[in-house]
């Protein structure tokens, strides 16, 4: 069996793998958006720029200080997350009492500033970032060659997503978070420092974006605009999944990555648009999204 529906198996599995990789990033990014949205009620338009910052952070660590991929995976999310917390403290905090759309506009402006500054400095062609030594090469599975790094991306992203789900749904800290989403005033009355929790949550969501950025660096190269178009696709993923459930957004992310990969095999002209078409169909059938609840 070397072809399915007239498509060579090699190509089919190759695209499926690319779909899974893209899906890993959709899942990580939409998870971060959902976590932030849950507590802050804003859509973080700067998410794509923060993802790019994560990749650049890894690039600087490697080229300025010689710190490699594994440490970057830890340091970049912390650094970018801290930067996010600074933004939350100084700017976003002032907008909580206003219409939530202002948060969207502010973060859109921040994204323009960050991406513009980096594009002025580094142009819009990509900078190379090497695959860490431990993960070079690949395994030959009978039907295709599986590059180790790509397998790692899928596994690591799944692990982080499930870890986040576990913390939010099954731990005491997570119960505070969920309580904060439901009724922040009541939670404050119980003596929880809600403003600090909000800051940390924003930092965590931004850190997730930066983590995705570091993982993306060896695959897509480091590019100032790497997050600009991606964030729009992730918005569509968020609309399709609905932001009500963590597992839902993870599942939607991977699922749509695979659908996109399959479209590349069977009808490549639509591969850029298929996610938006799925979004339109879902909105017509189930306006709240696949896993969402409409308020």
């Amino acid at each position, binding site marked *: 069996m070397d072809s399915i529906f007239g498509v060579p198996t090699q190509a089919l599995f190759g695209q499926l793998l690319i779909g899974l990789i893209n899906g890993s990033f959709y899942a990580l990014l939409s998870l971060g958006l959902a976590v932030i949205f849950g507590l802050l009620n804003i*859509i973080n338009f700067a998410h794509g720029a923060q993802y790019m910052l994560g990749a650049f952070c890894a690039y600087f660590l490697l080229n300025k200080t010689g710190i490699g991929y594994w440490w970057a995976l830890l340091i970049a999310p912390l650094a970018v997350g801290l930067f996010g917390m600074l933004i939350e403290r100084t700017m976003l905090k002032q907008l909580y009492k206003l219409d939530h759309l202002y948060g969207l*506009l*502010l973060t859109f402006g*921040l994204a*323009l500033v960050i991406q*513009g500054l980096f594009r002025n400095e580094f142009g819009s062609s990509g900078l190379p970032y090497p695959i860490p030594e431990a993960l070079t090469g690949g395994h030959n599975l009978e039907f295709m060659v599986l590059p180790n790094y790509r397998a790692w991306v899928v596994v690591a992203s799944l692990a982080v997503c499930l870890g986040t789900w576990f913390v939010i749904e099954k731990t005491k800290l997570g119960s505070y978070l969920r309580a904060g989403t439901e009724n922040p005033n009541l939670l404050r009355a119980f003596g929880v420092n809600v403003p600090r929790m909000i800051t940390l949550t924003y930092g965590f969501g931004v850190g997730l974006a930066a983590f995705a950025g570091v993982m993306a660096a060896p695959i897509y190269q480091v590019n100032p605009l790497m997050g600009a*178009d991606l964030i729009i696709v992730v918005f569509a993923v968020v609309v399709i999944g609905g932001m009500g459930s963590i597992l839902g957004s993870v599942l939607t992310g991977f699922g749509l990555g695979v659908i996109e990969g399959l479209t590349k095999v069977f009808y490549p002209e639509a591969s850029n*648009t298929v*996610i938006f078409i799925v979004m339109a169909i879902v*909105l017509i059938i189930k306006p709240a999204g696949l896993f969402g609840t409409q308020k």
Partner: protein
Amino acid sequence: MTDARERLAGVPAQAADLRHHRTAFAVVAVFFLAAPLVLYPVFLMKVMCFALFAAAFNLLIGYVGLLSFGHAMFLATGGYVSAHVAKIWGLPPELAILAGTAAAAVLGIVAGMIAIRRQGIYFAMITLALSQMMFFFYLQTPFTHGEDGIQAVPRGMLFGLIDLSNVWAMYFFVFAVSAAGLLLIYRIVHSPFGQVLQAIRENEQRAISLGYKTDRYKLLAFVLSASLAGLAGATKVLVFQLASLVDAHWSMSGEVVLMTLLGGLGTVFGPVAGAFVLLGMENYLAQLGAWVTVVQGAIFVVCVLTFRRGVIGELGHWLKKPL
């Protein structure tokens, strides 16, 4: 809440409103009639087209409370269709513009039916996603010529009489179209229909309980806004004789949001002022090159944090008269 009630029954207040709005309209008209003596006419035509575009956008955000982050798709659709009709089909400019506007209206019906199924932040994300889909469509479909765009669009003879290749004929034509568009938007906002829209913005549940089918009102407002944005795009294409992907890109959607925010959300003249200031900045600070994006982003941040009323909103606040 009292505010909402006053808006619902706000008809008597309009007589007073109209008087100073009339003066303001006259000031704006005189400005654009006299300005070409000092400023470059093509620049002013661009400003007028974008003022109409921003005013169409403002109809949604300012009076229905819906933030569309995908209005570029209507600008581009109006532009591409009228360019194709004028260049390939060889029809006169008035029909080309009409075709572009109609195409934007049709797209508005489809996009609107999908987007108004969610509110608030979701509405913004959905319109952005739909607009990105249209961007890829225009990138791939043959009639738009991809990255090249439709070039050398003929301006043609208006009504078979007026040669629009004359810059003054074109100038006054654009002036007439934009003025008519702005007056129409003003009329819509101050009609009973517009009052219902504002009631929906203030409290949708209450509007529903009063028996209004709010989805129909929102859809109609969306289609009107889309058509007027298409009209702006079609007119702009005749001015520059070029329809390109720039109009379809998400940064164009961001730009119209910024113009309206800078001028003042929900003000009659804010979009005009916003378009003038922002395009002037881009035009005269062209040596900044790639810094324009950074400056735009910074203006966004400053406006949201400290200047939410916008230029005209502040002016109106200071004069104690809504402008």
